[in-house]
């Protein structure tokens, strides 16, 4: 179980491979790996967005993400879980967040992955400030609902 806050761009596939190589030795027990990658869009609320800055509360962010992963471990039969999240200046197409969950069966991996992502969206203290094409800056007021299509 691990939480990493990244100040620089990261390749989620490389992170995943490195984590599996160093942390997951009982690979024979793994029957399901669920991987979610959130990337930055170049639009929001009808406007083109050319970049954004992600602020966070150091310490509380890690504490809340640890609690979310522990809650997931308690609720589902997981072998391991990993969250990697960017902070700082981010640009369209760059990964913002990686959630990976390993389990023996797909139901646990799928459901825990969704739970972790939705809990992160509502509890982990990150804040996005968007930079629009006209150089205007604006704070994102709230996250969209994860179970609605827009």
């Amino acid at each position, binding site marked *: 179980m691990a939480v990493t806050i990244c100040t620089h761009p990261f390749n989620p596939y490389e992170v995943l491979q490195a984590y599996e190589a160093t942390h997951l030795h009982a690979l024979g027990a793994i029957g399901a790996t669920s991987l979610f990658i959130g990337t930055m869009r170049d639009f929001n609320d009808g406007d083109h967005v050319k970049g954004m800055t992600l602020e966070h509360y150091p310490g509380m962010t890690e504490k809340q993400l640890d609690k979310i992963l522990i809650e997931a471990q308690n609720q589902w039969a997981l072998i391991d879980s990993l969250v990697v999240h960017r902070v700082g200046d981010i640009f369209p197409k760059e990964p913002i967040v990686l959630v990976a969950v390993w389990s023996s069966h797909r139901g646990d991996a799928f459901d825990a992955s969704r739970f972790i992502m939705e809990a992160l969206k509502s509890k982990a203290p990150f*804040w996005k400030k968007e930079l629009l094409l006209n150089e205007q800056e604006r704070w994102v007021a709230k996250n969209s609902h994860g179970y609605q299509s827009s």
Partner: protein
Amino acid sequence: MSIKVHYFASLKESIGRSKDELIFTEPLTVYDVWQQANPDKDRPNQILAAVNMDYADWDNPVSDGDVVAFFPPVTGG
């Protein structure tokens, strides 16, 4: 007792500072901390509070050495 206060994101910008350090002699709640630190500002709508990096209600008590944080709804992920 001494309380550290942190502000984040749009709240930090609207207040114009990122932190305060307050000294109190009476027992107090999270809401009291907000009022003492920002006597000329009503509590903004939707602002969340944390004590020692855990979410807290506004009527939660705070103790000597606690770190209180105020911030808008989170928007990560």
